[in-house]
């Protein structure tokens, strides 16, 4: 399971001084659940997800993933997490299969298990047609499937997806969404961020609305609908974030 405890991240910028990219964010995501982080660009979603994946270290607060603290045991956390973001590209000079195998080995899989796991994932994601093709020769959809295979090869109990369907065609996006849903059915705790509301409605058990580094609202979709008196998720976001934007402009 994922538990963020008052996660905060500050950056120093020469021109703008101290920037609070994430400010005191707390939430939990249980196994078999999908938690979605929603917010505008620059709201702090990616930084939050990067801290959960231990790519960045929190300035304050912490997070515990599968019983391991992200600050104390980052390597154990990463062994339990599959992380995919718009910034996790593929090695252009490796083939799709070599890339997935590389990450499998780094996760400590023995060659027999690795072969079974790779064959299974490549079949499930329909990737056999390009398994020996170099990553720089793959289409966007093929690349995204390879990235997903990379995050799954060690069968982690926690998956973190940062805008996994951005830039994908309808059919590939659909495959990815079905796949995320499938991961939930297998009992994984999943956290993902997106700008596509239909994906949230289809997948999410819980969601959090983040703005300016702060988690302004969170709960299940029905809970938020009841609280803000709106059915449409976009309208709920506008109601949560809108007053702050108006104050800032005033």
């Amino acid at each position, binding site marked *: 399971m994922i538990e963020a405890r008052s996660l905060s991240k500050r950056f120093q910028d020469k021109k703008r001084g101290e920037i609070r990219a994430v400010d005191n964010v707390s939430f939990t995501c249980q196994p078999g659940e999908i938690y979605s982080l929603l917010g505008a660009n620059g709201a702090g979603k990616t930084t939050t997800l990067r801290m959960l994946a231990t790519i*960045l270290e929190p300035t304050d607060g912490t997070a515990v993933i599968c019983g391991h603290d992200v600050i104390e045991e980052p390597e154990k956390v990463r062994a339990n997490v599959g992380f995919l973001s718009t910034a*996790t590209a593929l*090695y252009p000079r490796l083939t799709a299969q070599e890339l997935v195998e590389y990450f499998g080995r*780094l996760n400590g899989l023995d060659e027999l298990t690795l072969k079974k796991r790779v064959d299974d994932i490549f079949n499930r994601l329909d990737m056999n047609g390009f398994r020996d093709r170099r990553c720089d020769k793959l289409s966007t959809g093929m690349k995204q499937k390879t990235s997903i295979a990379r995050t799954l090869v060690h069968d982690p109990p926690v998956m973190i997806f940062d805008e996994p369907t951005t830039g994908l065609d309808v059919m590939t996006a659909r495959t990815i969404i079905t796949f995320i849903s499938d991961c939930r059915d297998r009992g994984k705790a999943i956290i993902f961020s997106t700008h596509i509301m239909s994906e949230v409605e289809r997948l999410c058990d819980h969601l959090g609305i983040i703005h300016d580094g702060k988690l302004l609202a969170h709960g299940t979709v029905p809970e938020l609908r009841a609280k803000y008196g709106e059915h449409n998720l976009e309208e709920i976001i506008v109601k949560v974030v809108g007053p702050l934007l108006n104050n800032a402009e005033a």
Partner: protein
Amino acid sequence: MNFRNIGIVYGKELTEWLRDKRTLISTVLVPLLAFPILMVGMTSLMTVMIGRAEKETAKIMIIGGEDSTQVLEKLRRVKDLEIVPYADDWMKRISEKEIRAAVDVPKGFDSALGQGKELTVKIYFYQGEIKSSFGANHLEKFFDDYRDSVISSRLAARNLPTDIIKPFAVKQENVAPPEKVSGAALGGLLGYMVILLSMTGAIYPAIDLTAGEKERGTMETILSSPLSRVDLVLGKFFLVLSASLSTAILSIISMGTSFYLVGHSGAMAKKDAAAFQLHIGLPAVLSVFLMALPLAVLFAAALLTIALFAKSYKEAQSYLTPMTFIVVIPAVASLLPGFDLNPKLALVPILSTSLVCKEIVAGTFHWNYILLILLSSSVYAAAALFIAVKMFQRESVLFRS
């Protein structure tokens, strides 16, 4: 530290490295082919050009000498010289390479010789222009021979032996064995080349594995794996080190082959070819590589660290290109006369290694200095590697924007 993971990272980096055409060109093809092509090609071309220039008849002009028909007649009979009629613009003609040289025969040359007066014959030529020098040499040789014949006839006229003007001869004799001769000439160069090539061989992979990864967006991918940062740095470091050493080894093999080909090709005169026949034994070459190893480690770690700081490939190139000068200056300094090993210089990285390599190739092993230099450069290398590991743990460096 997990050796299995370091090996996995190294294996993957090696696979990618070998699949990169730019790598193969810069690390394998250029070092292997550049030296033979340059050396064999250039020396063959030079031999042909010089041979042709020497064989060509040299056009020269005589200034004055109208009253000295005797010397002019002898000059006209010289086989390799073609005398063109006098013209006032002779200097311009030499500059424009129409004639190779001109000789000023002083007024009353023939009669002055008969009276035993001292005269100066001036030869005009264009310095730096090889054909003009050949023309001037021909003229000088003619006048030297002519002077000798005049001296001989004067001595004969007085019934004196010719050795009266040469009471003794002077001759230099070499006592140094062949390896010392070539060691002095080329020994410094071998150490210098190994040092410089281990540096240049490391530049491209160091950039590709750090700033290149940032630019391609794969840095975050690898950082999301359970691999520790220490293992990641070491895997990358060993690849950069391998690239650095393989460039140096291939280049030295290639250089050795080139020297061998030039020295044994028969294209050069025996005297000149001897300079290319190396007498450096395998133990000396291996010792040079052993001495250069800590430096290669230092270069690999330092270049990785600097390139990691860059945001893009281009930025990394602009940081690392000036590094070549930092290496070239002490390495060149070691070739200058007056720089000899002493305890202080033994602590200066690059310079000390270059100096000791020069000595090793010349067959001198100062064990105290060798140990001191190995120790000091290993300490620098370890420090550079430590800094590289620390840099890979800094978010501000990894995600610099």
